[in-house]
């Protein structure tokens, strides 16, 4: 099926494709049905064709990029930059606006620098976590990578999308130190101290003379990131892996209020994750093996399954990083706090010391384990996530949790809910909607559930951390304060930097183009 960029007819698009071929080489302009199929979202919540691309281009550097931008601006062709294109559950490589041309940066895949002294690196967009770990290992580096739950994605892409990991450097966007950007007009800019000729400090300090701009280019469509500096953690002297099981549903608020001060004071010095009961019963099983009734797996059945495995209603997992003596102190403090507030909680601990072989619980090895749960509800499976940002205060977290659990059950979906304690002060909820991709009714039900939850969250003043392509407009519309002052500012920045709006139209609801019409405030 032919898919065209909006507003272009076949002849004009063919002329543009010929110009792209002349600019970057015909072999790097992908137009066949099989090529375009490889950029569809494998976990689309409904019809993949809604987010189909018209072609894909794979430049090998900034010179190619500049040529592509010149042509795209002339023809007003929307470009959708992807680094590895593995943003599973949020759209993968597919564009928000049907007919966009994928700008596939996979060929820009150099690890430009790893500085063992300062613990920094400089990478290009096509470097995956697999690639990066292999390069660290090849060099015998004493620096550790903070990877997400699956390693197929791009180091840059994950950080720019506010992805998370499980080490003290687990808020990946906060490890960014210096970006190289290509603006829509083809000009190349280095942020931070990269603006200084011959700088040796580009990756050493985030805050230059003047505004720090790095955050502006995360979860946005203002420019194409061509290089990123990041900070890496020196190998720790030791680690402790901690698993806490909390028995009752009604313990939730106390659990959050127990964890918050431990995380805020850095006693727990890496992100923690919390899983509710439904999230724990899936591991290694299929839904059909445990539930054949209508609607969501019932609370009674879920509790029965937890009991079989001797698991509590809530599980908490985190790693601590320190010397053996300091780990003892951290663990003693955690035990003391839990004994005071949640005396029935149980705690399992594993230890590791520098020089010992690494183990899987340390999450230092690359992994694709997250893909193993995709078929939970049926094959071919998919999932997308509802991810509100919630203050790490028991009462507030309980308010949000109870709404999400109730709505999931109301819509016939298993409330598969987790929370990341990325920082001390806020939780990122991840409520996964699993579905069978060929079941149109189920996909429609998931979309309706997501939108219902957006409405519920706006009512209580909550916003989202990230969304699938389908919900970019829903998410941006939650930012209504001051007559949508922030979305309006974003649109003004977009208009100044990319007046033709060719870069990632629809992304985060910013700019004049999107599949559902102009963004908020336009």
């Amino acid at each position, binding site marked *: 099926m032919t898919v065209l960029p909006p507003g272009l007819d076949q002849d004009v698009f063919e002329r543009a494709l010929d110009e792209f071929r002349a600019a970057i080489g015909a072999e790097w302009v*992908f137009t066949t049905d*099989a*090529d375009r199929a*490889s950029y569809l979202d494998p976990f689309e919540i409904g019809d993949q064709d809604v987010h189909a691309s018209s072609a894909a281009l794979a430049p090998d550097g900034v010179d190619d990029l500049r040529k592509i931008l010149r042509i795209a601006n002339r023809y007003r062709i929307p470009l959708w930059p992807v680094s590895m294109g593995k943003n599973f559950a949020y759209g993968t490589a597919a564009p928000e606006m049907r007919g966009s041309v994928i700008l596939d940066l996979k060929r820009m895949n150099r*690890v*430009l620098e790893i500085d063992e002294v300062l613990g920094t690196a400089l990478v290009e967009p096509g470097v995956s976590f697999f690639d990066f770990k292999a390069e660290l290992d090849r060099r015998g580096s004493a620096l550790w990578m903070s990877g997400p739950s699956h390693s197929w994605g791009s180091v840059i892409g994950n950080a720019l999308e506010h992805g998370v990991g499980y080490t003290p450097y687990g808020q990946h966007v906060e490890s960014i130190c210096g970006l190289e950007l290509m603006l829509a007009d083809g000009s190349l800019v280095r942020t931070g101290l990269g603006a200084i000729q011959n700088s040796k400090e580009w990756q050493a300090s985030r805050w230059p003379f003047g505004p720090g701009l790095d955050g502006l280019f995360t979860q946005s469509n203002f420019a194409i990131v061509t290089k990123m500096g990041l900070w890496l953690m020196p190998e720790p002297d030791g680690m402790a892996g901690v698993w806490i099981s909390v028995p009752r549903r009604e313990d939730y608020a106390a659990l959050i209020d127990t964890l918050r001060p431990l995380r805020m004071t850095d006693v727990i010095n890496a992100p923690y994750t919390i899983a509710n009961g439904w999230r724990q019963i899936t591991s290694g099983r299929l839904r059909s093996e445990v539930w054949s009734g209508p609607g969501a797996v019932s609370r009674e059945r879920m509790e029965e399954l937890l009991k079989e495995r001797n698991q509590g209603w809530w599980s908490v997992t985190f790693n601590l990083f320190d010397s053996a003596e300091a780990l003892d102190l951290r663990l003693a403090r955690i035990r003391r706090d839990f004994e005071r507030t949640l005396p029935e909680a149980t705690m399992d601990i594993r230890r590791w010391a520098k020089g010992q072989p690494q183990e899987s619980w340390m999450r230092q090895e*690359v992994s*694709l384990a997250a893909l193993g749960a995709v078929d939970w509800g049926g094959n*071919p499976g998919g999932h997308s996530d509802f991810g509100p940002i919630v203050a790490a205060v028991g009462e507030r977290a309980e308010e949000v949790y109870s709404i999400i659990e109730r709505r999931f059950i109301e819509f016939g979906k298993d409330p598969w809910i987790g929370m990341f304690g990325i920082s001390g002060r806020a939780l990122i909820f991840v409520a996964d909607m699993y579905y069978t991709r060929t079941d149109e009714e189920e996909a429609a039900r998931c979309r309706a559930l997501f939108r219902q939850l957006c409405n519920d969250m706006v009512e209580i003043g909550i916003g989202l951390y990230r969304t699938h392509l389908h919900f970019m407009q829903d998410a941006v519309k939650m930012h209504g304060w001051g007559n949508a002052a922030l979305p309006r500012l974003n649109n003004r920045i977009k208009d100044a930097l990319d007046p033709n709006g060719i870069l990632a139209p629809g992304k985060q609801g910013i700019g004049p183009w999107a599949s559902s019409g102009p963004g908020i405030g336009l």
Partner: protein
Amino acid sequence: MNTLVGIAGLALAIATIGSAAAKTQPEAPRPSDQIYAERCAYCHDANGWGTRVLARRLPASDAVLLNRASLPPGYITFVVRHGIGAMPQFTPSEITDAELAELSRWLGRGN
């Protein structure tokens, strides 16, 4: 004086360690066994997630990709570009058409 020596030593360390900037994915067509090792084996070896998922609906002997009795090249090509079940697809920037054609023949020969 000590400070100056320290700074010079630091600069030398950075220059030495940071000198390599090799492409992590070379552009010349890669041999199929290398592509298999880099892109497929992680999920499709005996302990991989892909093997575990396949074992839910295939005989154990067929769940490991390299043990599969029949793997028509056309089927492999289609699956790699379109994905199947829980397996997401691969783009031509990850595995080129030429590499995929050879990989499909290589897997089809029962390697």
